């Protein structure tokens, strides 16, 4: 996609306005968000250890790719307002939570994909209260570009997902922009997401590889459990097949 013509005003403003702030290399920030309170003893009766494992993994691997500063949160600080206030300045975004392709506020059959914020330390998930819709994210991202977006949730990699557009990523597999969106198509076990993401990161950060190569490798190793035959393990991607996932 041809980029918009740019007025380089902000860099100039930054230079002139921030006396005393050291001028160093450009920083491409990222954010890793994980809903964990929904899956604790308090809400579920048992503590699910997968969310914290995926949070630790994503945080380490986004940093290894060069996203800095790395923000976000696991647990009660992962709120809708924190996410929407932060997302505009990010280049890489990772979310692990419950996700689905909900009907839009305008009604069926329009889809407005969403994930759930963390419910906080004193409440448990409530879809109506905790939903973070792609339409709200799209309004907050102002059609700015994103390099790497990973929705570690159910369904947000399906063909009906509206989440990629929230990050200005078209659902095509031949983009020329530096962008890659990864999600899962069906209802997906946490163990399968963790196995896939470990393989994805292992290959992507194991050398000069593209995100698509890492996706292909992770999709190929097998060993993924699925809840039933109607929900086979299936990751999906959109973006640039030649992009290396690194911020720029």
């Amino acid at each position, binding site marked *: 996609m041809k980029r918009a013509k740019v007025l380089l005003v902000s860099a100039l403003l930054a230079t002139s306005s921030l006396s005393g702030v050291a001028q160093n290399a450009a920083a491409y920030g990222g954010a890793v968000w994980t809903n964990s309170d929904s899956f604790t003893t308090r809400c579920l009766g048992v503590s699910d250890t997968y969310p914290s494992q995926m949070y630790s993994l994503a945080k380490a691997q986004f940093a290894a790719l060069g996203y800095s500063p790395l923000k976000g949160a696991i647990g009660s600080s992962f709120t809708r307002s924190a996410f929407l206030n932060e997302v505009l*300045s990010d280049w890489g975004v990772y979310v692990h939570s419950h996700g689905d392709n909900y009907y839009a506020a305008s009604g069926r059959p329009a889809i407005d994909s969403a994930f759930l914020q963390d419910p906080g330390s004193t409440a448990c998930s409530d879809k109506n209260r905790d939903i973070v819709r792609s339409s709200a994210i799209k309004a907050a991202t102002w059609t700015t570009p994103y390099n790497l977006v990973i929705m570690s949730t159910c369904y947000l990699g399906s063909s009906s997902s509206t989440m990629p557009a929230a990050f200005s990523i078209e659902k095509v597999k031949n983009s020329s922009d530096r962008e890659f969106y990864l999600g899962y198509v069906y209802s997906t076990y946490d163990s399968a997401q963790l196995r896939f993401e470990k393989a994805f990161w292992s290959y992507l950060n194991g050398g000069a590889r593209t995100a698509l190569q890492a996706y292909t490798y992770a999709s190929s190793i097998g060993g993924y459990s699925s809840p039933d035959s109607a929900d086979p393990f299936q990751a999906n991607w959109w973006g640039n097949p030649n992009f290396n996932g690194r911020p720029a």
Partner: protein
Amino acid sequence: MKTVKQPLIGIAKTAGPAALVIAGLIFSAGQMSAAGHPTPKATSELQEAPIAQSAVGAIHETPLLADDRPDVFAREDTARAALGFTKGAKRSGRHVHDGLQASDYDEISELDAKGQPSSLVQFDTKGDLVAAVRFDIPVSSSGVVSADSATKTARKSLQGVGLASDGNPQTRRDDASGGWAVQWQRTSAGHTVRGDETLVRLGADGRIQSVAAVQHGLAAVPASPLAQADARAVVARQCDAWFSGKGSGYNVGAMDLQWVGPNAAFDGMKLDSESDPYRLAWVVNVVPTGAAADSTRLVTLFVDAGSGAVIGGDVVE
């Protein structure tokens, strides 16, 4: 058309919201005004979670040279040819201790003229093929290949690399590529080995995209496996305790005997201790109802068929 933004330039983390507003954005001509921007807040705190070593584990690799390990390079050449993978301009080899995947393997990659991998083949420490993947199938490739044809091609490819293809596989469309995934599920003593399989993926044009073999060691079958009714009682006791007082309930769904890997799904103390052998267990699906259903679609429990203990499980959020 996308609005362009610029990275933060020389801004310390503590520079504050005003600096983020100024430096974090560049406006597209005529598309928005500064007054219209939301004000990004400063960073939310990163809360530290318990960290599994396998979540941040390092990847250590040592080069494998054809002169030192001709056997590995020869096996790769055989597999590559059998699967129809393109011969590269050159090859590179490495032995990998993969802290993320908790595995060790030898990997030989075919590299194109630009040094990019066009395929790889991985062998475990015993020399058995665990994965073969090609990267040079165009994502926009066209062609119509039937499920039957895909299954035949997959079976033939396994014969070519010396992997078994007994029984009837499951063949399904790959939603991402338009190709096919052909899966031979492993069973032992009449029971599914959870996650163990031989998987062949084909591109939309019918060429082999990948072959993988996943196989774990198995413990002995318990002398007196837990009866289904007893396993159901274990699950009921467990779930009554879990869901009691949470504003939630549950329904017990499908349950069957499978070989499973004990895991740390519900016990953080077991992180990084997951290992062979797999054990025979009742795999029981529990569907939350009430408040818990808003965030959790399914909880799966593994009840050891020998001891009756819950040895792991899984969650669909």
